Each structure stands twice: as C-alpha cells, then as structure tokens.
C-alpha cells in the first residue's frame, strides 16, 4: 500500500471515529451504571456505586426472565442443531431439480423479519392446537422455541453446510469397504468431522436465541424472557439498573471472546508445531533413504 501521509492520517481518523461510534455508546452506558444519580447519567460523576447491580439481582421479574431465557436458549440448541445437521445433509443429497426450491424454503427465515416469524408461529399454532384440542401445547415457551428454531436452524444449517462441503467422500467409502455399517459411518466418520461446526452452531444458536427480541415479543404470550422484561423496564423509564445489565452482558461477551481467542491461538500454535514435527520427520525419512 503506497499511501501519502495525508491519506494515512485521514484513514486513521476514520477508524478512530468508527470505533468511537461503535463503542462510545456502550462505554457511556457502562459509566452510568456506576454513577449514583437515579437517571442514567455520565457527567458529572456524583459518586461511585455498585448499588445498581444489587438492585438488578434483586429484581424478581428480571431474574425469572433470565431463567426462562436460559431455558429457551437451551431448548433451541437442542432442536436447531439436529435440524440444521439434517438440513445440511439433505442439501448435499437432494435431487438437483428439487435443490433450489428446497434451498429457497429453508433459507427464507433468514431473510424474513423476526416479527413476521413470531406472528406466523403464533397464528399457526393457535389454530393447530385449537383444531386438534391440544391446548396445553399453546404455551409461550414452546411457541418461542419453535419461532426461534425456524431461523436459527437455518443459521446452523449454513454453518454445517460450509464444513460439509469440504468433506472427503472417499473417507466414507473406505469405511464402507472395510465393513462399517451406515450408522457406524455416520457416528464415527461424519460426526467427528463435523464436530467443530456443530460446536460453533450450538454457541451461535444459544446466543441468537438469548438476545432475540423481535420474534420473542410475539411468541412469548404471557410468559416473560429477559428481553421482554427488559423492554418493559425501558418503556417505563430509564434507570441505571438497565445500564448495569448491559455492562454485565458486555463484560461476559468480552471474556468469552478473549477466551475463544486464546483457545484458538493455542490451537494454532499446536497445529503449527505438529506440522513442523511432520516436516522434520519426513525430512529425516528422506535422508535415511540411500540415494540411488
């Protein structure tokens, strides 16, 4: 890159503004979580307090919503990852004529606004449970899980599909030739190969479900999740407890991202060491063969 000093300064300025825009609001909010005034305020700092965090944990609705959110996130992972896996495998095997139509159907939830997914889920299951007189099924948690599953399964499918496309079919054929049954191939060849993708899909599924509001607000009916309680609180007015919650979420995310970064770095190092080892062994092998 050959850029003049002027361009370089302009670019540095742009990056600085970008990150101030991106992180500034969060920093401001975090500061207001430690400031004493009743209304979230950054300046002047009137005193340092952690009382807003205490208030947050004493908020019964918020804690109940938190537990429901965890439950929903867990159920969504349990449903979406297997569905996403099945969806990806079917995608690689389906007849080419039907593939584009199938793709259109299963990817459409990704491009549909969340509120429409929530609305359609509620409308359909209200009708279905009335007609089949299984009214107990018409429950906020179940509907929310189903609503989330529609688009989160598609995310999972896309992640798994990306890895599946690099799968070497000859591995499967080798196992079959050696007498493995189909379920054995699936269990011992395909699943281990897909493990990293399954893991990222599970993490992504949980996080997407946990932070979702648009679909949840329609599908949750009379139950409450963390996001719907939070929305209610924000509508009533601003208090620093909301800032406190946001601060916790940011802190947890930061720790998770850092941990992930460390794990990845260590894995990279291990991989590099292993490759270097392999290269050395190969060289030694070559050297030991007498030249002809």
């Amino acid at each position: 890159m050959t850029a003049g000093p002027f361009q370089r300064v302009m670019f540095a300025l742009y990056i600085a503004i970008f990150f101030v825009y991106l992180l500034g609001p969060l920093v401001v909010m975090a500061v207001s979580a430690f400031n004493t005034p009743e209304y979230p305020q950054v300046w002047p700092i009137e005193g340092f307090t952690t009382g807003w965090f205490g208030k947050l944990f004493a908020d019964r609705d918020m804690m109940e919503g938190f537990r429901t959110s965890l439950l929903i996130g867990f159920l969504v992972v349990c449903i979406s990852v297997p569905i996403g896996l099945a969806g990806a495998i079917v995608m690689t095997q389906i007849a080419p004529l039907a593939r584009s139509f199938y793709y259109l159907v299963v990817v459409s939830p990704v491009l549909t606004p969340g509120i429409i997914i929530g609305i359609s889920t509620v409308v359909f299951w209200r009708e279905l449970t009335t007609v089949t007189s299984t009214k107990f099924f018409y429950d906020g948690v179940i509907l929310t899980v189903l609503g989330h599953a529609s688009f989160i399964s598609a995310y999972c499918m896309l992640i798994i599909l990306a890895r599946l496309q690099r799968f070497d079919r000859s591995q499967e054929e080798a196992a079959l030739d050696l007498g493995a049954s189909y379920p054995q191939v699936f269990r011992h060849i395909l699943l281990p190969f897909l493990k990293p993708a399954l893991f990222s899909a599970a993490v992504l599924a949980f996080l997407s479900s946990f932070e979702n509001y648009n679909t949840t607000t329609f599908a949750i009916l009379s139950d409450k999740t963390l996001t719907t309680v939070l929305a209610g609180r924000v509508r009533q007015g601003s208090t620093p407890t909301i800032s406190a919650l946001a601060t916790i979420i940011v802190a947890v995310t930061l720790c998770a991202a850092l941990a992930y970064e460390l794990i990845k770095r260590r894995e990279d190092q291990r991989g590099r060491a292993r490759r270097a080892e392999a290269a050395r062994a190969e060289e030694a092998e070559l050297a030991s063969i007498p030249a002809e």
Partner: protein
Amino acid sequence: MRSIYVILLLPLVVVIAFWLIARVEGTGTSASRPGFFQRNGWPIGLYLIIAVGFWALFIIVLPMIYMVDLSFRPKLPLSQMGGPKDVYTLQNYRYFLFGSLTSTAHWNWIHINAFFTTIFASILITLLNFAICYPLAYHMAQSATAERLRVLLLLLIVPYWVNDILRAFAFRVLLSSGGIVNQALMGLGLTSEPFDFLAADVGLYMGLSYAYLLLMIFPLYNAIESLDRNQIEAARDLGAPWWHIHAFIVMPHAKPGIASGCTLVFMLCTGAVATPMVLGGPRTMWFTPIVYDRFYQLFNWPQGAAYAFLLLVACIVFVLTVLRITGLKLGEITR
C-alpha cells in the same frame, strides 16, 4: 375442520413429490447411484426426513400460509370461526388504504405514511451503513496486518452480542436532554437549550444505523477477503486511479457480500421492534409498532396478519430487486 386436512395431507403430498422427483432424476443417471435409504441407512434416513420435514413444513411453510390465510379473514369471536360469516375478504387490506368504514377521510394516511417512511428510511440507512463500513472492511480484508486484524475483529465482535434494546437504550442515555451530547453542545455554546433528538427522529435513525452496523461489516469483510491482492496490484501498476480499483475490481468481486449485507440491514431495519419503541418520539412514524398494536392492543389478529404480510411483501420485493440489480442467485448471498 378443513384446516386439519391441510395439515395432515400436506406432508404426504410433499414426501410423494420429492420421491417422484428423485425417481424422475434417477432414471437418467446410472443405476449405481445408491438410493436415499441405502446411502444413509434406515435410522438416519428417517431422522433426516422427520427433522427436515418438521422444520420445513411445521415451522416455516405452514405458519406462513396460515398467516396469509388469516389476513384475508374478518375479525370474528372464537365461537363464529368456521361459521357462515367466516368468508374470505379484503377488508383488512382495505383498512390499510382507506381506514375504517366510518371514517370520512379518503385515504388512511397515517398507516400509508408510516409504511413508506419505514421502507424509505430503511433504504437510506442501508446505504449509509454501506458507506460507513466499506472502507473499514476493505482495510481489514486487504491491508491490515494479522495482529491488527485480530484486535479489530475482537473490538467488532464484543458489541455484536449486545441486545437491540440495550443498544437503543445506550443511545437514549447518550442523546437524552441531560445526556452527554447535549451537555457537550451546550458547553461549546452551539445551542442554548437541549436539543430534543428523540422527537426529531434523529435518535431513531442513528440507533437503527448503529444497531445493524456489524451485520454490514462481516459479510463485506468476508467477500473482500477472498479477492486476490495481485489483481489490485496489477490494476495499480497499469495506472488505475483508486476509485477505478474500487468500482471495477473490488466491488464487482465483493458483490455477494454487498448484496447480503444490504439485504440483512434492510430486513432488520424494517422489522425492528425494539429500536422504534425505545428511541421513537411521540409522533414517530414506524410500521412495526402499528403492527404490534393490531395484535396486542386492539386484538385484531386478522388485520395484524394483513399488515405483517404487507411488510413481508416489501422485504421480498427488496430482495428480488437486489438480486435483479446484482445479477446474483439467492444461494450466493446467504453464506
């Protein structure tokens, strides 16, 4: 009662259709290609069909069909559903255009205005976000060192998982009349009294742009990253000015990423519920709160379904327009 037949029959029809397609296609190819169950074994084959069938039919397609179906029905008490009054009607869409039967106004301007303001503002926000994100995405993908890239990605990922509501709330703290922005403006002597950003909808548009910034940058970054540096070098050696390089080399290559980022941002903006709720002023025009009120304030579900369907149509039109302009296929933008 008719609906239960639909629910029961549809899966059967779909399974037969797929089997037929497989048969038709199978006759052309060599016989050595193993069948579906032969290839997967019975237990896994069944799992695949049940999982995908349940997902595609009961979670995606049928709910959508029922929502559209409901939008063409009148609002009736539960006892009269399926009765003689339960006929197909356009009255919910009529309401969107002309308001209630008793109103004397010609058009239902409030809803029509809100609808088109939402679409128009979302398009502008999408373009704005593209303009903000493109330089950074290009820098990250093409000229940043590996170490720097890691730091930048980390800085981007952390705000990514903060909820919509909290992002909007952060903006409210920032822009409120006693907030830090107004304090700074007054401190600098630019205004004598606090400027009401929220009533002027500045807060809403900034909040929306802010909330979906990262959904633009990651697709852009992924797309530009796969571009071979040599192409840029070659263009530069041949004397192309910088904007030529971007307009004729980088952007055409990054087209799928641009299309996917724009679609996501547009879709999330038009469908945003939390941001207008938190940052909207009393006279803010946004379509989603109107839809929400149909459901949980007025309890007029058919009308709400009709309004939701209008929103969905707007999104489909947008996606199709993007696909037409860029000449891409759907599969290329959803990676």
